[in-house]
């Protein structure tokens, strides 16, 4: 049953022409084994990393090592195996990872990680923990491998409170296109029988750089005189997210778009004090100058949004009962299904160089 569902999903994907962009031959994924250390009484920061650029199917070995008290750090990519590696005599802890890039694209990066931690035992380093994992990450996400809570306080100077070792991966930019910038023109459109509402924004980012997007909220006046000071009530819709584009040598642009939508009731002209959200993520390719429309699913039909009333308890709704705005003695409530019946929400995106 599960197998047939996968086949159906693949056929649907192929038929839609929306195959997620994959890594090209000349592109690599940068894999980093990072050592994150916490300053005494201060913040955590990355103090070193062993980095390797891998093509799909390629393996690489990376390591990080620290001295007692977490004062000195040694990092790198090793051309040989762990057995051939000769660490400096001051190394107290060593983390070693053999990493294979299984698959990669804007959608996700799949790695197989064979990792080990070695601790000082007399004159030698001995394996204290190890494991093999298959890890799936989106660009920039991290996967924690190990943690040392206390340094060796009885061995002299202590430079960091603790260390954390994690793994992160990111597509390495094509050197020919690494300095490119992309301009994004976005529209958020809500079309309904009453007309259409739009919010527009322009932004830009460097090649492969994630940029934040936030549209000006859309507001619907739903009731009057329901808050202190005879203030009216609005239903507020906010749309924000993150966008990443990567120009390819053939002129197409791989796009990763993540959006979150929030709905809530607010006093007129005021920020939304709460609400209910939904959202999604889409990875696709566009041509430069092409305008793509992304239709957003309807807000959850069973969802509703409420805010406690203040004021003298008078007030009235501004919409007919069929629109799902309900006023009680204590609450003002909006039901998604009747309120958004006949609405279509969409995003328009145009990418230019």
């Amino acid at each position, binding site marked *: 049953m599960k197998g047939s569902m996968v086949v159906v999903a693949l056929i649907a994907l192929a038929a*839609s022409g929306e195959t997620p962009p994959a890594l090209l031959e000349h592109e690599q994924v940068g894999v980093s084994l990072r050592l994150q250390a916490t300053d005494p009484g201060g913040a955590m920061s990355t103090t070193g990393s062993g980095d390797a650029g891998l093509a799909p199917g390629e393996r690489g070995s990376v390591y990080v090592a620290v001295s007692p008290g977490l004062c000195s750090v040694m990092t790198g990519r090793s051309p040989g195996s762990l057995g051939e590696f000769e660490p400096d005599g001051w190394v107290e802890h060593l983390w070693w990872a053999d990493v294979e890039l299984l698959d990669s694209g804007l959608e996700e990066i799949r790695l197989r990680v064979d990792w080990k931690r070695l601790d000082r035992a007399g004159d030698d380093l001995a394996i204290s923990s190890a494991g093999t994992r298959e890890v799936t990450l989106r660009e920039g996400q991290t996967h924690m491998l190990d943690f040392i809570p206390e340094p060796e306080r009885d061995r002299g100077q202590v430079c960091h409170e603790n260390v954390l070792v994690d793994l992160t991966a990111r597509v390495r930019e094509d050197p020919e296109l690494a300095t490119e910038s992309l301009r994004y*023109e976005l*529209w958020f459109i809500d079309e309904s029988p009453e007309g259409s509402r739009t919010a527009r924004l322009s932004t830009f980012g460097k090649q492969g750089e994630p940029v934040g997007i936030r549209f000006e909220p859309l507001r619907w006046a739903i009731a009057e005189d329901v808050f202190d000071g005879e203030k009216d009530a609005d239903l507020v819709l906010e749309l924000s997210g993150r966008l990443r584009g990567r120009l390819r040598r053939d002129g197409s642009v791989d796009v990763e778009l993540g959006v979150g939508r929030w709905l809530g009731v607010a006093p007129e002209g005021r920020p939304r004090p709460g609400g209910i959200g*939904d959202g999604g993520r889409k990875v696709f390719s*566009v041509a430069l100058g*092409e305008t793509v429309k*992304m*239709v957003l*699913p309807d807000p959850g039909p069973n969802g509703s949004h409420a805010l406690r009333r203040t004021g003298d308890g008078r007030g009235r709704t501004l919409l007919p009962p069929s629109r799902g705005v309900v006023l009680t003695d204590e609450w003002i409530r909006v039901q998604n299904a009747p309120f958004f019946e006949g609405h279509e929400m969409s995003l328009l995106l145009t990418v230019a160089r």
Partner: protein
Amino acid sequence: MRIDEHDEATLSAFVDGENVGADELARALAAPGGRDALIDFVRLRERFSRDDAAPSETFYARMRPVLVARHPTMNRWYGWAAAAAVVILALAGFAIVWRESGAIQPTPPQPDRVIEFEPGTEWQAS
């Protein structure tokens, strides 16, 4: 003896047909050299009235390519074009100010392609 400038101007004006006072004319004529000056002015006027000098054909032939004949209708067209340009520039400026003030919003572009977020996989409801 040379006639003074004032008397000379009186005689010149008289020859050009302008109104000149009789006493001023009499004094100018009586001045030394006045009579000769009057005769010189009359002769000069007579010569100018007979002057029919005109540029040679060679001059016309050389200047013809340089000078572009201006047709009356062309002049009228240039006038209308200039007026239209002024009106267009004024309207464009007004539109920019109006748009910047937020009075109008540009319209969204027409999409070249439509894609959807697949509920459940690409879109998570609350």
